[in-house]
């Protein structure tokens, strides 16, 4: 049943957010600490476990896969509700610090990624594309 997959996803999501809130409270910060990341880890472990036990039928996978494939449309909707007007109104200070911060981080990302061994790149090229996205050419 397709709902099993979606329900599994929902359960991981909720549990992750809950644990993230607990973690935030334990650390004394007013926000969620890594809730979504924890939820992702839970889902990864759930998949590995269910695959091993052989209780992961195709239809259940589709119940998760659909939402994974909806990811890009959701991101487009997210972009459409950014506060672009006030971002542009922030002036030189905001623009300059954002530009320099992004530029500096880009250089560091590039440096770290250039240190990666080429063999790992070859491994990754062999990565299967798991969910076929409809827009892919």
């Amino acid at each position, binding site marked *: 049943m397709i709902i099993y997959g979606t329900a599994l996803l929902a359960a991981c999501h909720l549990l992750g957010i809950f644990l993230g809130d607990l973690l935030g409270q334990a650390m004394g910060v007013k926000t969620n600490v890594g809730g979504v990341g924890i939820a992702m880890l839970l889902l990864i472990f759930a998949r590995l476990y269910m695959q091993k036990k052989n209780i992961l039928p195709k239809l259940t996978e589709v119940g998760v896969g659909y939402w994974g494939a909806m990811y*890009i*449309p959701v991101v487009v909707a997210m972009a459409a509700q950014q506060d672009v007007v006030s971002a542009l109104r922030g002036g030189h200070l905001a623009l300059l610090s954002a530009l320099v*911060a992004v530029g500096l981080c880009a250089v560091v*990302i*590039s440096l770290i*990624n250039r240190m990666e061994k080429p063999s790992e790149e070859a491994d990754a090229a062999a990565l299967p594309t798991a969910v076929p996205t409809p827009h892919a050419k």
Partner: protein
Amino acid sequence: MLEILQKAAASNGLVTAFAIVGLVVLLSNFLSRKLTFGRVHGSAIAIVIGLVLAYWGGTQTGGHKGLADMSLFGGIGLMGGAMLRDFAIVATAFEVQATEARKAGLIGVVALVLGTVLPFIVGASIAWSFGYTDAVSMTTIGAGAVTYIVGPVTGAAIGASPDVMALSIATGLIKAILVMVGTPVAARFLRLKTPRSAMVFGGLAGTVSGVSAGLAATDRKLVPYGALVATFHTGLGCLMGPSVLFFATKALVG
């Protein structure tokens, strides 16, 4: 006629949002194929169209939620809101190869810490050069350069003034937009090819919205790896901002 159609769209907000976003994606993929011959990813164009629509919506309504503030497009707010966004991000984890993720564990943490401290130093220094020389303002604007959520959370915790808070949020927003639009352009320079490189990117570039949109527009396969790390970004920033980073700034400028 038109009125009835408008009412139908407004009272079925989420469904309308699905239709509109589908149309935007369709148009973007068409433009990507015909205008750029596939060189610019359709998702990148769709995100830029989204941002332009957000700007248009913002100027029309004067609100803070872009297109979602217009009653006709209210459903966009639900579709692209934190709930469905996180739901879809979590779903992408289903495609993660656990072995790949484990390989990048330590470097992911290093990237996260760098991704918090470096933008903070940049933001705080530029704030200082613009005349915001007190520790509270410097910390708040520096935290805004981490993400647009860390900024106001930090500012509220240490008692920043409203205009500094607004600057801090604006800094974070511009950063998120720059990452969204710039990532596909800079993908080659950033060496964004492997799951490990996506995790480094997720840690350093910060902002879930920027990372998730930037990776989506670069290579859909890399999204879960980047998002996995990036979701810890805001939490770490909110942890360090009002504490370690604030105390360090205070020690430096008194």
